[in-house]
């Protein structure tokens, strides 16, 4: 297998310097070292330096496409530059076999005041495409870019999208053994991106070794055979693309989860005029009660020893002590397998008797509301509550896809207008991809789409009809396996 590898990277490390002046000074020193052959190859960090890449090893065979993923600053672009031979490694060895070309910069060397046509030749020449080849393929390039009418216009009058289209069209003429691609596909309008993706698919099947940097995990899952996950210059995982993508997404969610936990309450309470009116009404009732000593008030009986409510602190009335999420086995947890039963428990303390409070749980993903378990819809609970208590809301087979979710809680008064508590995030939880095999995952972007697409999974049936044929030629029922 190693024999066929067009790209072989063995224990490669690269260091960078954080400070500009110092970096330039090191550059001068390195240069002197290089000239007098004394460049120290032992990998030692000098002050202010860090490993941009550390001990990276992998191989890419002909016909294979490798996706590089990782957060910003993980070292993806550095790795690509090393493979391209733009910079030298500080240790380790890179072996590239065959012609290497890079799809890194669109429209390299474009001169703004020259025409599109002139720039095509310049750009092609920089990329190593001969004039003869461009002469032959110019019509294809122009057609692919879709800007026939502007070929003799100076490039400075192009929109940025048009420039990118022209640049990409030239790049499609590359025919190397090894192709390096750095996130250039996210340009142009949707139709052009579609074109680019098709082109990528053609390239993928053309028996090259391709290395592909992207932030789009969809592209990695759909196009790449293997993936390399970098973090702070080190390899976290390297293997089958779909496995890596799955683990990477899982990791990202875990991170999002701990971040949202660290944030705590995300929603500020809001005092509406309705709330204010509610409290004022209660206060005046109380005063009446106090002065007249009447005992037949339904809202505030005599024994209701309530402190005077502060209209700016609504939580005085009903305190939420804690909120718990429990699974079917009554375990408190914050991670649940796909399609599991979830129960939300709200422990409260009512400082005085409250008639028919309405509890509302709003489920959110990335600040977007997904659904509500709301007594504003469902109706009343007990006639009144007072002192300590607990409300439980059980949701069977929660149909949410693997993601991080928040639960927002607010309690309203019986007529539904006044807030009795501050509206706030009371819990967050994560749906993992455990038990995800309960639904069919046969599509090319299944893992990604389920994770990054819409948050709700609903069973459905697909039927295909041919022509006028009244009977479906194929029916696909997609749902949960119980």
């Amino acid at each position, binding site marked *: 297998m190693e024999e066929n590898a067009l790209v072989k990277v063995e224990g490669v490390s690269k260091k*960078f310097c954080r400070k500009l002046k110092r970096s*330039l000074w090191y550059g001068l020193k390195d240069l002197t070292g290089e000239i007098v052959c004394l460049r120290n190859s032992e990998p030692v960090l000098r002050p202010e330096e860090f490993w941009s890449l550390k001990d990276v090893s992998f191989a890419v065979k002909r016909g294979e496409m490798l996706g590089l993923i990782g957060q910003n600053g993980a070292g993806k672009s550095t790795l690509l530059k090393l493979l391209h031979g733009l910079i030298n490694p500080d240790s380790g060895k890179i*072996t590239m076999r065959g012609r290497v070309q*890079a799809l890194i910069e669109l429209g390299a060397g474009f001169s703004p005041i020259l025409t599109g046509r002139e720039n095509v030749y310049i750009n092609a020449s920089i990329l190593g495409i001969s004039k003869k080849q461009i002469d032959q393929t110019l019509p294809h390039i122009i057609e692919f870019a879709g800007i026939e009418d502007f070929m003799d216009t100076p490039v400075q009058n192009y929109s940025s999208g048009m420039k990118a289209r022209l640049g990409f069209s030239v790049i499609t003429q590359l025919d190397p053994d090894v192709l390096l691609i750095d996130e250039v596909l996210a340009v142009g309008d949707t139709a052009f991106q579609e074109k680019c993706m098709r082109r990528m698919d053609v390239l993928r099947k053309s028996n090259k070794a391709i290395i592909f940097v992207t932030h789009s995990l969809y592209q990695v899952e759909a196009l790449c055979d293997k993936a390399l996950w970098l973090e702070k210059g080190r390899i976290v995982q390297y293997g089958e693309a779909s496995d890596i993508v799955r683990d990477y997404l899982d990791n990202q969610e875990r991170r999002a989860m701990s971040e949202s936990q660290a944030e705590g309450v995300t929603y500020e309470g809001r005092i509406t005029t309705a709330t204010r009116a509610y409290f004022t009404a209660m206060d005046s009732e109380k005063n009446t009660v106090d002065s007249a000593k009447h005992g037949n008030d339904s809202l505030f009986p005599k024994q209701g020893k309530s402190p005077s409510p502060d209209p700016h602190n609504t939580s005085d009335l009903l305190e939420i002590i804690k909120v718990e999420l429990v699974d079917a086995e009554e375990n408190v947890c914050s991670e649940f397998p796909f399609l599991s039963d979830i129960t939300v428990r709200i422990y409260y303390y009512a400082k005085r008797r409250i008639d028919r409070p309405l509890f509302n749980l709003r489920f959110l993903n990335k600040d977007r509301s997904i659904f509500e378990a709301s007594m504003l819809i469902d109706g009343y609970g007990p006639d009144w509550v007072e002192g300590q208590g607990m409300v439980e809301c059980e949701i069977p087979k929660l149909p949410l896809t693997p993601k991080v979710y928040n639960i927002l809680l607010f309690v309203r008064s019986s007529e539904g207008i006044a807030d009795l508590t501050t509206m706030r995030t009371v819990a967050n939880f994560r749906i993992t991809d455990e038990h995800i095999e309960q639904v069919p995952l046969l599509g090319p972007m299944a893992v990604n789409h389920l994770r990054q697409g819409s948050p709700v999974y609903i069973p459905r049936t697909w039927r295909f009809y041919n022509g006028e044929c009244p009977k479906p030629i194929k029916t696909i029922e997609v749902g949960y396996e119980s």
Partner: protein
Amino acid sequence: MSNRILQETVYTSEAKLRTPFKLLICMFKDLISSRELAWRLFVRDISTKYRQTALGYFWAVFPPLMQSLVFILLDSSQMLAMEETGIPYTAYVIMGTVFFGLFTDAMNAPLKLINASKTMLVKINFPREALILAAIGETLFSFGIKLVLLFITLIVFRVPIKPAGLFAFIPLAGLLIMGIMIGVLLVPAGALFHDLTYALVLVNTALMFSTPVGFPPPKEGLLSLVIQYNPLTPMIMAARELLIKGTSSYMTGMALIMSLSLVLLFIGWMIFRLALPIVIERMGG
């Protein structure tokens, strides 16, 4: 397709000078493969340079004209007590500034082109020699325009040119080589620290007055000593004398400096190659 022999490229941290033979082969291979790109870059830069100007090629002859004007003004007010030049002073000065312009253009071009191509350099691996070839091309092109100015001047002032004057191309080539050599040697440090770009402007002016551009070499004084040891002196003087007289007393100095420049140019090229990955690493992008 897959059974053809694939070229293997290896990148390591080892200093490339440890395998000098391999380095030489790579250098010449890249030089040859860079011709087409060099031509493209040359055409691009020339057309970009003059397309968005109203005066066009005039800007190539503007600097030597201005410099000449300064000398002519100085001379007319008798501030330069100089020896007889043998030909009308205006023709003498324009000849000097045009030749000197060839040198300074050549010296400034490589660094200028490298800095202007930064975004390309940090993203794409093309034969870097193309930039130097393009720099040479641009220098020659602008020199060609200046030559037109020179010939018009010579005709206007009725300065006769000897057929042997054609040999002036040798010291002129020397000036070009010297300029490019210095320019290439400046690239590594100049691309890292922009101080050099600023310093070059001053150096140009200082050089002009310590080179016999607007006056013949003086016989005494501190300046005469500076001019005597200035490697540009034999080049400029040889070119001028060959063009006017057909012979020159500076031939030995010229030959010596030219061969030294060629050797240094080769060393500069080698350093340029070794330096670029290091420079690019620090350029960011």
